[in-house]
């Protein structure tokens, strides 16, 4: 390896790079007066929200050709997209437009002064009235709306009616005693009653089961009394029993893949997830999709018929002093959250939205998706998922505390103590 070799390799590399700058300079020039709104997002690709979002962006750009252009900056992995947004905000460079999960941890985004205040805009032309008041209330902090609700989560209990019939269970149990009875019957025909999981980022399935139970014991405001209400301990006791007798052997440590695969393979008869999972089960296990029904959780206390549902995704924009830019961003916000476009998003990707819209028979809604809409309408009340009410470090501890309770055979009070310690 002598000097000549180095020179040759440098020349080669330089040539390569020159060729790249020719190929790579594909980014379009900005027309004078055109406002470009860059949107780094994980809503890309061919699954989930990708196709419908791309369609809406193209439409909006065509509508405002030469004036406003929304540019999708693809960050296909959701976690990585969160990292990118957090980092840019921390560096004081917020993206023009972005999505995030509004919760006790991300609330600090509001305090940075980097987000556009939309409070006054919502007053105009009744724009604010199109949003679900509850979701909008959550998005209002210190009287300011700096993000708009854009997607809702609703996570009823899913059950396999074929397996239930086989086990001789006619109706989904409404009380916890009926539930244990039904679970025993399922075991008798060799079916594991529930899918559970302590793994993944937040023990998703089990976290939702737990929240259902907590709601049925403690009622709508139970989270306001978090970790003090006896509901938290009682629900933990029920979870412990489910893990000990009525779930799969791999539940401890299982992730979303394992827990959903068990339900789709009819190894388990019950499961909890949101509407986004409908397309997954429809594509992968159409037979199970056909026999799946949704129900409210069995009641372990005074309340029944509620659902776990919360504001899942919010959209925000960077604060700007340029009125033209501000106006452009607001137009894009209005376009994206217009009831017609909200409906297209909802039907296009199977999600529930915090904006009301009409569905007619001509819309050809997936039957399971239709059940979601009904489940939301029929719910006696909604209770937030943990990620909406607890900071991230507490949410992350849920699966750990749950597995500690089951594996170490701790009393449910210890589970609550672990969660309380995490919350400190």
């Amino acid at each position, binding site marked *: 390896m002598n000097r000549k070799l180095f020179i040759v390799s440098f020349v080669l590399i330089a040539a390569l790079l020159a060729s790249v700058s020719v190929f790579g300079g594909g980014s379009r020039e900005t027309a004078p007066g055109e406002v470009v709104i860059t949107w780094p997002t994980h809503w890309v690709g061919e699954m989930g929200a990708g196709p419908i979002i791309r369609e809406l962006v193209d439409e909006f750009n065509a509508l405002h050709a030469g004036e406003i252009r929304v540019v999708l900056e693809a960050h296909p992995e959701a976690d990585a997209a969160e990292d990118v947004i957090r980092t840019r905000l921390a560096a004081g460079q917020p993206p023009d437009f972005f999505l995030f999960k509004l919760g006790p941890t991300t609330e600090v985004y509001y305090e940075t002064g980097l987000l556009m205040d939309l409070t006054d805009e919502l007053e105009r032309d009744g724009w604010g009235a199109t949003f679900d008041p509850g979701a909008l209330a959550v998005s209002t902090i210190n009287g300011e709306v700096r993000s708009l609700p854009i997607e809702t989560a609703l996570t009823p209990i899913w059950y396999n009616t074929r397996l239930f019939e086989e086990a001789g269970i006619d109706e989904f149990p409404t009380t916890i005693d009926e539930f244990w009875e039904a679970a025993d019957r399922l075991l008798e025909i060799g079916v594991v009653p529930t899918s559970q999981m302590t793994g993944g980022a937040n023990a998703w399935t089990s976290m939702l089961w737990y929240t259902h139970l907590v709601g049925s014991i403690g009622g709508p405001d139970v989270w306001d009394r978090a970790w003090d209400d006896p509901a938290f301990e009682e629900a933990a006791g029920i979870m412990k029993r489910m893990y000990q007798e009525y779930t799969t052997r791999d539940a401890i440590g299982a992730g979303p893949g394992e827990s959903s695969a068990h339900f789709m393979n009819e190894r388990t008869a019950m499961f909890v997830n949101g509407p986004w999972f409908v397309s997954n089960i429809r594509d992968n296990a159409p037979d199970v999709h056909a026999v799946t029904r949704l129900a409210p959780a069995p009641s372990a206390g005074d309340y029944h018929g509620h659902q776990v549902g919360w504001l899942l995704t919010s959209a925000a924009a960077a604060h700007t002093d340029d009125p033209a830019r501000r106006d452009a961003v607001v137009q894009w916000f209005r376009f994206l959250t217009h009831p017609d476009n909200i409906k297209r998003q909802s039907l296009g990707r199977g999600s529930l939205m915090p904006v009301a819209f009409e569905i007619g028979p001509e819309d050809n809604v997936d039957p399971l998706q239709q059940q979601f809409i009904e489940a939301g309408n029929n719910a006696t009340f909604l209770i937030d998922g943990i990620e909406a009410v607890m900071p*991230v470090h507490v949410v992350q501890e849920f699966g750990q505390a749950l597995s500690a309770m089951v594996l170490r055979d701790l009393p449910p009070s210890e589970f609550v103590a672990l969660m309380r310690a995490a919350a400190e």
Partner: protein
Amino acid sequence: MKKNKTLVQKNTWWIILFTAPVFVLLLMFFVYPLISLTITSFMETAGFGSATFVGFGNFSRLFNNSVFRMSIRNNLIWAGSAAFLQVPLALLIALVLARQPAGWRFFRSAYFLPNVISLVALAMLWRAVYNPYYGILNGLLNLLGLDHLSRNWLGELETVLPALIISYQIYVGYFVIILYAGTLSISKSLYEAAEIDGANVFQQEIYISIPALRGFILSSVTLAVAFAFRQFETTFLMTAGGPANQSSVMALFMHRRMSAFQNGMASAVGILLVIIGIVVMKGLQVIFGMRSAAIEDAQQ
């Protein structure tokens, strides 16, 4: 050695020129971020803007946190496995390969392949291998009539860490490469002389190869221990630290604090990770009886 001393004055500018690029990049990409990390580690950060000086507050909170203590313990176990399992295994393989058995070229290339596979895919594979329903491990045990030993490997307190560490040994190839490259620098005449003296293969390896490879063994141990300390992806993808935080490690703990916006705590973990890592690295170098000065003397 004396001669080298006289070169110092003559070559000062050359030395500065040669080290400058690395020095500048280290400043930009390591020193500057580390300094800001250190400053943040003494701050209580609520969100982004506000930060108040709390002295060693973050550190004392960390040491009072049982999950963090568990993470340190696990990192030490990881480091031990790196030094006493991974590197010896790699050494054994490298020595065998150096004797050029049939197909050695093929073996040498194949052994590095796991390093190329994406961690996401490997983690899925290992999760499947350890799964109690369709996993190979339980399947094997059942086949051997040892059903009572089958378990939920990644979901039990006793088995999760060993299972993770064993799955990590797939990366032995990394150190096989270093050690194998080291064997190339050993003069063949040494072995020829030993053969004439009647030394068998084992004696040759113990009295010739291993002493000659001491520097490379030390490099491997140092790197393996460093990787064990910053070990993150395997744990994150396979268990996320569970069950019951039994497999948590410091880098994972730090990552969780970061995603919870607790930057003060996260930075403190980062600093402690580096400090504890250096102490353990130095400690192992002493255990292996080869402080760098000693090697230099031996080799010169």
